[in-house]
């Protein structure tokens, strides 16, 4: 449908807040492949975690005369006005993982709350509802705060779960710094049996510490997010990292572009587009001999493709 019948005339912009790391790289590649499948012209604006700059970049995109904008992460307060300006300029906008408080802008989310919740439910399934846990958390980071909500709820609902220690840092390299902290925590609390590390960099660090402390058999790690590197870490012989819950970042990227495409053709993807997360257990990975994200996609169709923001005419990227 118009204007996508002449897609090379259509320009869309991706305005990013975060870009460094596997998740964001995979997300970008999802955006790129879906944009390519549609044949539209994609411009990427990368504010490198500068929220103020990100808002300006929306203005720049407006000045460039794009037809649609994807806002990827950012702060409500700084993006709200900029998003409104884009809408005012007649541009279609979708927002991923940032609430810009605008009824005209669909929210695309990889429900962080569900990520946390599914992981914890698996933990309770594996360990019963009475255990001593270590929790990795750095407040102030929006997705982590949302995952924290799941933890607080589960803790309140299961008084048998004892939070022995809360730690965590975003010092770079994150896995290494968290490994150091987790070592200290394990030294001080030798009876922890569950580690909830709802961010894969945290989980990597905790896993290193657990291995170094020789507690591989005693401790189970539950996390969120997945990458090829995470898969190999989970599949190491005797790995303590038993489960993670994730959405495929590339799929999220595709969904963003598709939602925007629907809006460009005059459709409505819905006020809120949620990409459902998938539970990935160590056992599943081993049983299916999954080595990387591609294998995972092949063996787990719900991971490979999310059937949201789909229409009949929508071209999909080649697999």
């Amino acid at each position, binding site marked *: 449908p118009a204007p996508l019948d002449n897609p090379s005339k259509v320009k869309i912009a991706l305005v990013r807040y975060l*870009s*460094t790391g596997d998740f964001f790289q995979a997300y970008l590649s999802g955006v790129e492949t879906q944009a390519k499948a549609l044949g539209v012209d994609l*411009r*990427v*604006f*990368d504010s*490198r*975690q*500068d*929220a*103020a*700059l990100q*808002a*300006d*970049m929306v*203005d*720049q995109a407006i*000045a*460039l005369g794009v037809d649609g904008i994807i806002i990827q992460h950012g*702060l*409500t*307060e*700084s993006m*709200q*006005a900029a998003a409104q300006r884009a809408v005012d300029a007649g541009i279609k906008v979708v927002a991923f993982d940032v609430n810009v408080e605008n009824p005209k802008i669909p929210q695309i989310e990889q429900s962080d709350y569900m990520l946390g919740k599914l992981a914890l439910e698996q933990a309770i399934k594996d360990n019963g509802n009475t255990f001593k846990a270590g929790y990795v958390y*750095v*407040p*102030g*980071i929006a997705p982590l*705060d949302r995952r924290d909500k799941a933890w607080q709820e589960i803790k309140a609902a299961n008084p048998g779960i004892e939070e022995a220690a809360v730690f965590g840092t975003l010092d770079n390299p994150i896995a290494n710094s968290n490994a150091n902290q987790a070592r200290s925590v394990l030294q001080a609390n030798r009876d922890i049996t569950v580690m909830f590390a709802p961010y894969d960099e945290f989980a990597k660090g905790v896993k290193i510490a657990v291995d170094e402390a020789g507690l591989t058999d005693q401790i189970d790690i539950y996390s969120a997010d997945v990458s090829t590197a995470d898969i190999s870490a989970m599949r190491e012989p005797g790995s303590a990292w038993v489960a993670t819950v994730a959405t495929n970042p590339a799929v999220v990227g595709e969904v963003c572009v598709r939602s925007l495409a629907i809006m460009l053709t005059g459709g409505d993807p819905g006020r809120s587009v949620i990409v459902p997360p998938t539970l990935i257990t160590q056992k599943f990975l081993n049983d299916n001999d999954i080595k990387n994200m591609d294998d995972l996609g092949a063996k787990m169709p719900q991971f490979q493709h999310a059937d949201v923001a789909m229409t009949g005419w929508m071209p999909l990227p080649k697999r």
Partner: protein
Amino acid sequence: MSNDLNVFIIKYGFLVLLVGLIIFFSIFASGFAGPRSAVFIFQSVAITGILALGVTCTLVVDGFDLSIGSVATSSLMMSAYFLVILEASALTAIIACLLMGAFVGLINGILIVRMKVPDLLATLGMMFLLIGLQRVPTEGRSIATGMRLPSGEVADGVFPESFLWIGRHRFDLFLEKLIPVPVVIFILVALFIWIFLELTRHGRLMYAIGSNERATALSGTNTNFYKVLAYVISGVTASIGGLLLAARLGRGDIASGNNLLLDSVAAALIGFAVLGAAKPNALGTAIGALFVGILLQGLTMMNAPYYTQDFVKGGVLVIALVFTFALTSRSRQGGH
């Protein structure tokens, strides 16, 4: 190479490079040329630029201020705390932040001149201290209207329009809503620091201290005063930067401002190469900040991925500096 050419390259080589870049991007990066894009570049470097101007003052007295980034983020958090949690007025918040910046600068200065702690060390300690301190009141959470406080209450304060104005308002100039307030403040701060360093006796004495502190003290200058002053200026400018950041973000976001330190140091150091100064100078710093802004803007417009931006930034930096400094030193080679 003829000597005149040499002198020309030293003085103007960097500016020629800058103009070259602008021309290059204007041709090859669609959307780069134009007044709005130019303003955008100014806007994108305004905050780092302001910080860089402060650090320039400490470089002039042969010091260094590693705490500027954390002063800026502290000021960001503090203004949000005042506005959202204490529900203070914009003016109160601004004054409090400026005082905080001055106070931190004062402490830095006292540590350095009275306690004789080396500058890098004192300001590094201050940096860690502030990074920790700014997170204590909210236990590490960002500050936004409606947040739940550790006490259980909900914070009701908002960022008033008058406060957001300093980050978001745009003045008309030929075009409607062209020049944002932060750019105006950046230009004013640059002008102020430039005048202070180049045209007043205080600036001259500060350069004297940077070159030979002992001799300057023996000529009757209160060198300690000027050194402390440099750190106070640096603290105040950093807190201005933080205020602008707060006003642009509209919340006390703890994750923002990570790169401020390195980027502003880069700008101040690039400034050494401008007009062949080979020493810290305000004009150079401002141009250095713009240089980085132009580069990043141009690359963004050319759709370069983020990691190539660092690479190109580093590469152009090194090449430009080699040019300037190698030539400068060659032409002075005779000297002692």
